[in-house]
């Protein structure tokens, strides 16, 4: 059994689908700030069989929960302060996400307009469908 030490302040992202932790690491931009991150892959889970866990030691205001919810809203977010869990956050699909994903429609104005943000809105919460604000093209990769 692998042992990863406690963190004093930061987040433990639990119940990540097995194999998805690196995607989340990338989307949250955890490679950029100078912080300690533990990526635990394929941990045993009674609920999920196998799961990934991310332990992030950082200022608790650093994490963009909207981005996380967009990637996978079933992830459990434990907020840690003074080495203890002080809060469990429930993630909800964000109504709108900005500059997280790009519109791949070559006919969309975002493909040519200078510095235009890529904004997607939640078109169908049940089916988790996001559409580009400008051309309304469906974001496909999330459905995979």
């Amino acid at each position, binding site marked *: 059994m692998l042992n990863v030490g406690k963190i004093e302040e930061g987040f433990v992202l639990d119940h990540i689908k097995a194999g998805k932790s690196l995607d989340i690491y990338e989307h949250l931009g955890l490679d950029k700030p100078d912080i300690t991150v533990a990526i635990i892959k394929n941990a045993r889970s009674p609920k999920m069989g196998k799961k990934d866990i991310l332990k992030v030691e950082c200022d608790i205001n650093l994490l963009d929960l909207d981005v996380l919810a967009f990637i996978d809203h079933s992830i459990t977010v434990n907020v840690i302060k003074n080495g203890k869990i002080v809060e469990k956050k429930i993630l909800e699909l964000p109504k709108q996400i900005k500059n997280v994903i790009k519109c791949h429609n070559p006919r969309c104005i975002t493909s040519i307009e200078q510095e*235009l943000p890529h904004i997607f809105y939640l078109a169908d919460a049940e089916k988790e469908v996001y559409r*580009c604000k*400008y*051309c309304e*093209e469906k974001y496909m990769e999330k459905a995979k």
Partner: protein
Amino acid sequence: MRHLMSPLDFTTKELDALFNLANDIEMHPDKYAHACEGKILATCFYEPSTRTRLSFESAMTRLGGRVIGFSDANSSSAAKGESVSDTIRVISCYADICAMRHPKEGAPMVAAERSGIPVINAGDGGHQHPTQTLTDLLTIRTLKGRLNNFTIGLCGDLKFGRTVHSLIHALSRYENINFVFISPEELRVPDYIIEMLKEKNIPFEEVVRLDEVLPTLDMLYMTRVQKERFFNEEDYIRLKDFYVLNTEKMQLAKEDMLVLHPLPRVNEISVEIDDDPRAAYFKQAQYGVYVRMALILTLLGLA
């Protein structure tokens, strides 16, 4: 400030007010001949579109206003690489309202976000063409007297035709509309529209041959079936005549069935039926001017 990006931007109640105004303009054109005096419409057309642009220009001119603009991207600053955001900021200094057509989808929305004046989407790629839909609705409402309780056949290219998609969405807000989709297998209505109709429990059927369903229709919306949309020449030759409306087929139709078409027509409606009282496509072009007049007045707050 209000813009028009999609035909669904207006509630059905707001559309009623708009259509009542358009009908009043039709009845009393003199009343509105100076309504926009001193106002300027900018027609920013990044791709050519003779009818839509002239319809807007005619609308503003008939309201006593003036028109400035460009009719293709090469004669505008876009050719020098200017962004839509910058162009609209400048146009806002020159005009009171803008109608924009752009090959890129969502461009008029970018303009609306940065604009100091109302922006009307005059067609953005394959995405939306709201004033065509408003034209279609006004034509139906005026000639049929209602926007509910009828069976409408949509015929031709139902896969790529944005006017068809917009019209289906717009009509799906009214009661007791029955859709009949008539197209070759390759050009069927996209799945997302079928899903929307199922979710709303709106009745529809899909058929390949026009003559089979003609007797049941209260209205027929024709579109062009283009040869290049087919996978092979054989299918095109086999199917093309199914989608041509001629005198023979018109004999199967109800006596008060309306024939609509967004124009330009190529050969899908034979010229021999142009004089048939049921042919409403040229009246539709006239209603296009009235609805744009009503829209300009409404967005300028002059209605």
